[in-house]
């Protein structure tokens, strides 16, 4: 969390993350070039750079795309998500080297501008065999550039988390185009079943993990809709709807609810229950998957914190969430889905017999 914009807010774990990222990238490049010089010493330096950076960028994009679903399937992978933006920027930089070298190698020093050449040398869009795969690479590079350029929290706040997240979801289109860039490009020449197999393995891994995660998310979304209850008794205030039972919410954790299109995280802590909007102000992370730590709701993605009673980040931070009224009747928790303005203090509902809970 930060109250000002630094170029990079260097938390210790970010430094460790980046050291490993750069180390592993260097390991791949050194090994790739080393193996090339051992097995194919005839390779030209330009081709070596093009192939080393192209394969590395494609590998990095696979890793990036696996991190999201891995975290949704097993939250122990969340440390990999924390600094994924640096991994994304590094992927763009490696891709850019690949793209620039390719453009110089194949399009520069000719009778037309290299970019014009890139766009016009092959226009056989109607044939899969002849499809101009470089255009797919260029479009992917533009997407990766837009993502890298807007990766900073400055742009996140300027664009709003919703727009920012939507823009950054275009990485999926970039992945699809890059897969076809590889398959309709170098694979058309190399043809090796092992290389084809590697692309197939990568595709299966990314698509498989995302499918598993999508199924898990569908389940979560279904569970977030409260079961229909018989008409509430007179003891229940007007406009309140049934949410769950007290026992449905783990201690110091939350349950996600979708009531009348409101996405709500309802937390249980210290014998109390409070409800806030489920989306973190930073990147719209799911607060319902967070924890109460040091008395604060803590986002699982980047550790942004909010007080459960008023949805405000503790000073000096300024982020604020919508809050909701909660009512407890026996074991049943009711919620009024009408949000209060962000940061509005609402008294938590007290769980009866919290110190001596009645066991069934």
């Amino acid at each position, binding site marked *: 969390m930060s109250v000002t914009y630094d170029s990079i807010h260097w938390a210790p774990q970010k430094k460790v993350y980046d050291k490993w990222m750069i180390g592993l990238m260097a390991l791949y490049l050194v090994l790739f070039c080393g193996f090339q010089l051992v097995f194919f010493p005839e390779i030209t330096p330009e081709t070596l750079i093009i192939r080393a950076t192209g394969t590395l960028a494609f590998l990095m994009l696979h890793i990036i795309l696996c991190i999201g679903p891995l975290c949704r399937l097993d939250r122990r992978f969340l440390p990999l998500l924390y600094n994924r933006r640096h991994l994304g920027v590094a992927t763009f930089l490696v891709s850019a080297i690949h793209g620039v070298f390719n453009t110089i190698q194949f399009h520069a020093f000719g009778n037309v501008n290299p970019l014009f050449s890139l766009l016009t040398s092959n226009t056989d869009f109607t044939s899969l065999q002849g499809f101009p795969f470089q255009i797919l690479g260029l479009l992917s590079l533009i997407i990766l550039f837009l993502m890298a350029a807007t990766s900073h929290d400055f742009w996140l706040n300027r664009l709003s988390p*919703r727009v920012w997240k*939507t823009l950054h979801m275009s990485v*999926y289109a970039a992945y*699809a185009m890059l897969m076809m860039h590889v398959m309709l490009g170098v694979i*058309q020449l190399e043809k090796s079943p092992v290389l084809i197999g590697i692309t197939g393995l990568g595709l299966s891994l990314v*698509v498989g993990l995302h*499918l598993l995660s*999508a199924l898990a998310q569908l389940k979560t979304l279904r569970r977030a809709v409260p079961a229909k209850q018989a008409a509430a008794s007179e003891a229940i205030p007007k406009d309140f709807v049934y949410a769950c039972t007290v026992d449905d919410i783990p201690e110091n954790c939350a349950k996600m609810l979708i009531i009348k299109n409101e996405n709500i995280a309802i937390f249980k802590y210290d014998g109390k229950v409070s409800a806030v909007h489920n989306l973190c102000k930073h990147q719209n992370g799911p607060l319902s998957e967070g924890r109460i730590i040091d008395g604060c709701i803590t986002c699982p993605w980047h550790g942004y914190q909010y007080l459960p009673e008023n949805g405000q980040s503790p000073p000096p931070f300024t982020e604020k969430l919508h809050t909701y009224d909660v009512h407890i009747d026996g074991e049943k928790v009711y919620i009024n889905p009408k949000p209060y303005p962000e940061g509005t203090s609402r008294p938590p509902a007290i769980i009866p017999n919290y110190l001596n809970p009645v066991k069934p």
Partner: protein
Amino acid sequence: MTIPLRRLHIFTWLSFAIVLPVLWWSAIQAIPDPVWQELIRSPLPLALPVIVKSKQNDQWAINFRSDSMNTRCQVEVLLKKPLTSPNSTLVIYSPTMPPFEVGKLSTRGLYRFEIVCTMLLQTNVVVALEDKITQNQIIQTSF
């Protein structure tokens, strides 16, 4: 992630799970088959029937050929590997005659050149492939 975004996310990957493997498979089907073709070159002189001398290594095979009367002779070269020099001139050295530049070799394959038979019948004949641009000897075989 907002609920609409989350739904879009799920929908995207459900679609990708169908579309991407289909495109991937189609791209494999589009891989062009190799285009083989018998090479067409200038016809070689017909091989003379008698192999008088023959030697070979991993780079080339050389046959000295003649007719039954030793009135016509040939040197036959089978180039086994692509050449990596800017010029490849076949030269025959014999103890009693000046070096004889037989001809130029080009792509991998078979070559046949007419030579004078006195050259063939001598001992200590050396057949060399020389680069006349860089003045380097590329291959040499002694008979």
